[in-house]
């Protein structure tokens, strides 16, 4: 019997509702999709999986991962087929070379591992030291945004095609062929230019050179005063008194890498004498922070300061003075400086930074009055750097616009970015039929040129240099070219119809001069080998060449003109300066430099308007900035040009002036200048503006440089500042400006107290009141201890460091060196803003405050009120101190006692060891560190896409810069300065292999090696003859936060000012 009863699943089925029908249709999918369809269906991939799918994925994922983990990984290992004799895998090779980019010049030693340059250290024998920009230059080599081959009208071509096309175009050039360069100081390159000239006609080919940061006025002033357009060689090491008027001679003025080396020689309080340094400037510069006396002046007053100095000295010598209005100048300081200059006449030095011929003429006049020529200013040797000619450049731009230039070749300079009137340059460029750029990036100029023939990076190039009389230097390749680039000189030789490659050509040039350079033509190969090995050849210079007759009329006329200049009008004056990290802006791509805290402001990743705090207060701009405190944004307008930048309250900035750094705002038109040149979003990716364009970091203020009739002027008058009504987050590594009376952090004194006073006056021992035998007695802190001594004294090695605060200039070369040596991750602006910067060493900068405890008591401010005022630095002219701070390797380390897993322990060589693979990331150690030097890996910087734009280890090319001897740390572990333990181990091994004791100085940390002033000494404290032990035993030696009782292995030396 058939069963015809019907059962319903529910009332919905009985009534056949719409919902039920729909659901029943979907119960079994009638149209099954193929796997491919399913996977490519965006609706599926966008939808989030449900719980069951999630569990399936999870189960599959875990199983797959487990199975995959069990399998032995197959790693291929490919040895050399034909191993070069000099390369041993695992052992570094060093090559001497030279860095030069128009601003920085220095002899370098390039450390290579398996043929990859990974570290740049100074070639100290060359006479120059290195700065942060040169140290970091190795990273730019590996940048993956460098051009990978030649371009024609923006499309890749082969070199052969380009040579053919360009060769015919150059031959047919209608009008002159102009080679526009930065200052060229290479004799062989100049010889290549001659070949090029010969090939295309001497009358047709013209050479123009110009410097982004011009010092053309010095040449012109010497022409006026001595009849020769030249820059003499200055010797800071001979000067007992140095007066600088706006010359930042340790950062960007002339041969600053040599200046620093010389300057610091006589800044040691233990020498026979210590130089006294006066600085008159507007913005607080690196050089200014090191001055014994500093006067803040407006940039328009530089001339008046010089004339006033002249008058004061003339008074003493009995010479004629020029009447001048001295209102508003730091007259007292000028008189003091003049007196010191005069007292030490013949052993003093006056330098001026401005690119203004009249001012430089007066400077020459004063130096001559003091008899400094022949002593601190050489009359025999001259500098060949900064050979740019502002007037010729201006004429070239005019010629281009007039259509007189048939072909323009741009080498080693980027005028579309750095030339003040870049709009005129760009419009002129359009009128030039054939344009060629040799830039390594498709930058502002290259992207406008028809042909781009990318030059090698300097670490891939051959070159020679002649920066000053008698000093020859060589650059040699340290790696095969990474991309299909060609050295510019090779390109020029090829287009000139020469068969020879540049390396041979250069050798030929040197062969001709070998005799002059103290070599021997017959034994040339030996000479050449030795020159390459050393990286430089210094030859004796004939003395008594003289500098020519001084033209007194020129001095009078110049001083008269300065006195006659009309006073600056209302409005702000703007100083355009270069920052220690970014310089002229040639390496925007370099995240190490972008993340380097500026030595003065401690701000990273940004450009800003620096303004005196009093002015900022008046405008109502924010005075403090930090993680949750963004800075105010101001609009700075000069004529038609205006930029919007955050405002920083900068103590020491002259009131009524602001300063803005050059070198920012790269890639304003989306040029490919490197990922790190653009702003990033807080969680990864480039920040885009409303049009979807990448936004450059900071603003380009080169257009604010005035093109006076005398050349480029790096300040402007009559600027207007207004509140832009918004805020901008900035990342600073130090927002605390003063020491708040903590004398155990930094100690300083003046030379007189140091020389004549008792050690207790400038380096008082720290005592602690303790209960003993029922009464309170003051005991020296080293006698009070909770723990037993570490058995490190006298046994084996005990590594330590001594840091002289007197000679630390704050230049931050050590910070980039450490970055490079220890694979320190770059974390980007957002993380720095949150206080998560990873620098293993930092340089703390403290300003003096007007308030102190005694004064507060006298004035009845109360403790809180006094401290509140002590927090505020002196606005107008604070004393500044730089203090390098890294792990102090305490013998009684507070971090070691709190680690629950013994991941940080003490070694029997005195090192505080950090073991990453043991660390579980509790961060107790960092909390317990009184020096705040421990850094936590909050993220997986080498993989997390937040850091793709900034972290080099995420770039397949830039990753090659990593030091293979140092672990790349994982997320969740603590890290900190290891005292370069890999170098210590390496140095010990080298000694053991040789069977000899370690010589003092043979093992150097990266920071000590990079330190241009030898302020950092590293060595073995158990070696009784070591320098570092002397440093620790010195009268000036003290331990930072000695009162905490940590017993560090790093000591500091009291800063002595010569006031």
């Amino acid at each position, binding site marked *: 019997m058939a069963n015809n009863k019907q059962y319903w699943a529910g009332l919905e089925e009985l009534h056949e509702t719409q919902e039920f029908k729909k659901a029943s249709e979907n119960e079994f999918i009638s149209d099954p999709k193929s796997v491919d369809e399913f996977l490519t269906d965006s609706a599926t991939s966008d939808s989030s999986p449900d719980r069951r799918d999630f569990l399936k994925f999870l189960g599959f994922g875990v199983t797959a991962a487990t199975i995959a983990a069990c399998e032995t990984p197959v790693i*291929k290992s*490919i040895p050399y087929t034909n191993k070069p004799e000099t390369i*041993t*895998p*695992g052992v570094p090779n060093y090559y001497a070379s030279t860095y030069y980019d128009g601003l920085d010049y220095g002899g370098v030693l390039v450390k290579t591992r398996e043929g990859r340059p990974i570290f740049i250290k100074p070639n100290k024998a060359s006479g120059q030291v290195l700065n942060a920009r040169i140290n970091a230059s190795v990273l730019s080599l590996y940048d993956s945004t460098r051009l990978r081959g030649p371009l024609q009208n923006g499309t890749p071509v082969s070199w052969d095609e380009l040579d053919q096309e360009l060769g015919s175009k150059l031959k047919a050039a209608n009008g002159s062929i102009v080679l526009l360069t930065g200052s060229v100081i290479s004799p062989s390159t100049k010889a290549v230019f001659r070949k090029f000239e010969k090939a295309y006609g001497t009358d047709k080919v013209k050479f123009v050179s110009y410097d982004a940061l011009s010092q053309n006025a010095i040449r012109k002033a010497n022409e006026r005063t001595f009849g020769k357009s030249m820059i003499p060689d200055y010797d800071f090491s001979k000067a007992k008194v140095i007066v600088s008027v706006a010359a930042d001679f340790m950062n960007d003025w002339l041969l600053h890498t040599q200046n620093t080396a010389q300057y610091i020689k006589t800044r040691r309080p233990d020498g026979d004498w210590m130089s006294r340094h006066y600085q008159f400037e507007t913005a607080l510069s690196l050089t200014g922070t090191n001055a014994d006396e500093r006067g803040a002046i407006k940039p328009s007053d530089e001339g008046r300061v010089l004339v006033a100095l002249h008058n004061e000295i003339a008074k003493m010598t009995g010479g004629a003075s020029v009447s001048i209005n001295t209102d508003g100048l730091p007259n007292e300081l000028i008189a003091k400086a003049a007196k010191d200059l005069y007292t030490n006449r013949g052993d003093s030095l006056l330098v001026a930074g401005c690119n203004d011929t009249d001012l430089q003429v007066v400077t020459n006049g004063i130096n001559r009055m003091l008899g400094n020529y022949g002593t601190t200013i050489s009359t025999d040797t001259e500098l060949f750097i900064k050979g740019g000619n502002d007037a010729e450049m201006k004429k070239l731009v005019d010629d281009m616009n007039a259509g007189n230039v048939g072909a323009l070749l741009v080498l080693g300079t980027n005028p579309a970015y750095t030339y003040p009137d870049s709009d005129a340059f760009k419009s002129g460029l359009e009128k030039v039929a054939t344009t060629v750029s040799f830039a390594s990036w498709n930058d502002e100029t290259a992207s406008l040129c028809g042909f781009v023939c990318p030059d090698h990076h300097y670490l891939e190039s051959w070159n020679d240099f002649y920066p000053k009389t008698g000093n020859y230097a060589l650059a040699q390749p340290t790696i095969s070219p990474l991309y299909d680039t060609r050295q510019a000189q090779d390109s020029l030789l090829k287009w000139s119809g020469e068969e020879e490659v540049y390396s041979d050509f250069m050798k030929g040039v040197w062969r001709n001069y070998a005799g002059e350079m103290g070599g021997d033509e017959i034994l040339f190969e030996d000479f050449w080998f030795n020159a390459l090995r050393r990286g430089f050849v210094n030859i004796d210079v004939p003395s008594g060449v003289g500098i020519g007759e001084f033209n007194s009329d020129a001095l009078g006329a110049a001083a008269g003109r300065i006195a006659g200049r009309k006073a600056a009008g209302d409005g702000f004056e703007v100083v355009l300066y270069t920052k220690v990290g970014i310089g002229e802006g040639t390496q925007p791509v370099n995240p190490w430099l972008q993340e380097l805290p500026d030595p003065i402001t401690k701000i990273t990743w940004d450009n800003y308007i620096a303004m005196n705090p009093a002015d900022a207060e008046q405008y109502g701009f924010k005075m403090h900035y930090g993680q949750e405190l963004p800075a105010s944004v101001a609009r700075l307008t000069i004529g038609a040009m205006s930029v919007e930048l955050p405002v920083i309250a900068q103590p020491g900035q002259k009131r009524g002036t602001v300063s803005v750094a050059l070198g920012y705002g790269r890639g304003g038109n989306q040029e490919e200048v490197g990922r790190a040149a653009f702003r990033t979003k807080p969680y990864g990716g480039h920040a885009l503006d409303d049009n979807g364009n990448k936004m450059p970091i900071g603003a380009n203020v080169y257009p604010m440089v005035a093109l006076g009739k005398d050349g480029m002027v790096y300040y402007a008058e009559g600027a207007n500042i207004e509140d832009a009504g918004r805020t901008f987050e900035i990342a600073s590594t130090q927002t605390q400006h003063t020491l708040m009376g903590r004398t155990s952090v930094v100690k300083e004194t003046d030379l007189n107290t140091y020389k004549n006073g008792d050690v207790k006056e400038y380096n008082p021992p720290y005592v602690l009141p303790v209960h003993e035998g029922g009464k309170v007695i003051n005991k020296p802190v080293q006698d009070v201890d909770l723990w037993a001594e570490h058995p490190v004294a*006298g*046994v084996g090695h005990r590594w330590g460091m001594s840091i002289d605060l007197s000679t630390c200039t704050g230049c931050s070369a050590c910070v980039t060196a450490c970055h490079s040596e220890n694979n320190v991750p770059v974390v980007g602006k957002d993380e720095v803003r949150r206080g998560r910067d990873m620098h293993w060493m930092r340089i703390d900068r403290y300003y003096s405050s007007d308030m102190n405890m005694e004064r507060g008591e006298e004035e009845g401010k109360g403790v809180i009120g006094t401290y509140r005022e002590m927090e505020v630095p002196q606005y107008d002219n604070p004393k500044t101190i730089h203090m390098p701070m890294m792990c102090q390797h305490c013998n009684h380390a507070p971090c070691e006692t709190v680690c629950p897993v013994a991941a940080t322990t003490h070694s029997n060589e005195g090192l505080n060891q950090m073991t*990453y693979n043991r660390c579980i990331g509790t961060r107790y150690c960092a909390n317990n560190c009184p020096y705040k030097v421990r850094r936590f890996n909050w993220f997986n910087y080498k993989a997390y896409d937040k850091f793709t734009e900034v972290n080099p280890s995420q770039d397949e090319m830039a990753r090659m810069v990593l030091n293979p001897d140092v672990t790349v740390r994982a997320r969740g572990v603590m890290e900190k300065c290891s005292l370069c333990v*890999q170098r210590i181990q390496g140095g010990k091994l080298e000694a053991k292999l040789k069977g000899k004791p370690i010589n003092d100085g043979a093992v150097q940390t990266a920071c000590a090696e990079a330190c241009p002033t030898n302020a950092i000494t590293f060595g073995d404290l158990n070696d009784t003859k070591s320098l570092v032990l002397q440093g620790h035993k010195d009268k000036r030696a003290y331990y930072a936060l000695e009162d905490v009782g940590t017993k560090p292995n790093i000591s500091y030396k009291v800063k002595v000012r010569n006031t």
Partner: protein
Amino acid sequence: MGLQLKQFLLTLKSLAFTALLIGGLGAGEASAQDGEKLFKQNCSSCHKINQNMTGPALKGTRERWEGREELLYQWIQNPAAVADMGDNYVKALLDEWMPRSGLMNAQAVNKEEIDAILDYVDNWEPPAPKVADDAVAETASVDQDGGISSTWLLIVVFILLILVFSLWGVRSSLNKLQKAMAEAEGREIRPEMPFGEKAKIWLWDNKVYVSIAGIFVVVYLAVAGYDALMGVGVYTGYTPDQPIAFDHKLHAGENGVACVYCHHSATKSKHAGIPSTNICMNCHKGINEGRSEEGTAEIQKIYAAVGWDQDRQEYTGEENPIQWVKVHNLPDHAYFNHAQHYVVGQIECQECHGQMQEDYTVAGQYAPLTMGWCINCHNETAVQMDGNGYYDEVHGRLVDHNKEELKKYLEDGTITARELGGWECSKCHY
């Protein structure tokens, strides 16, 4: 007795005959053997008999120099003088070989010796390939060895199977019998219990034994599991297939090539290094034949990698680097330096790499490379201080500093790596 004597005489006779035979043969081949010896001493570093090497193949030298016999002697004894004479054949020879190999060195051999060498060369025949026979013999013997044990095993298994079946048959017949008896006696047949129930009852009845066995099983599983987990990432015995079947036994063992001849960076670097191919060519430029055809084929792989044209005896410039498979994969966070251990610590290679000279493996992991293994050695090994100026200085400081401290170190008579900090984290992790 008579039989014994007869046998003795027979033996004596055959011995004498053998001696005669050997003696006679020996006398006849004396000069050829001298020739072989002389060839190996003087010529074989540059010449092969039937192949060009640094110099031309020597087979047929007499024919080629026919009519210039005296010149040939002079040529071998003083090539420079003959080269200047301007003989046509010599000139052709020089044109061909000078650019590649330069002029031959003068050889200190007299005419008789030259004759012996040339005789040897002329009479030389390439050895017949006998590798195949060896290989067959080897496999056969392996089969035999394996055959015996597996046959025994099969027999045992067979016997056991028979036993199992017969016992099963006995049991089922007993059951049937029991049933039949019960039926016959009219007793009630208990329903068959399910297996699970039976097992439960059995377990309960034997709970003491079961718990004892259980404890063993749990302990065993725990130990095995622990071992398995500790073995994660430990690849002792890892011998991956390599692109070239390099024979350490032949090179380091039989030929006695020192480990650091090829792995020379072990003396100065953290890496011992896989030898670069040009090091192979130091010897294999000359040695182009293996002991078997396979060996020769492997040598050919070197030539392919380094771009060596065997016929023209020159490099073509076409390089195909050999892609070896890395065997010892130390984690990135551990630093190990060969020079430290091999040169300073004077540890033999074999301590960590096993008897490579006796193993036919291209490369294999012998040591577990675990941290426990490292620090155990650091704990036991005395530091090699003698004659090392570095240790004189560092140790001297200790001696000068504190005699008590020193005693602590010398308690057991040796200063181990651990006592000098060999157990500290930053010695290997940074």
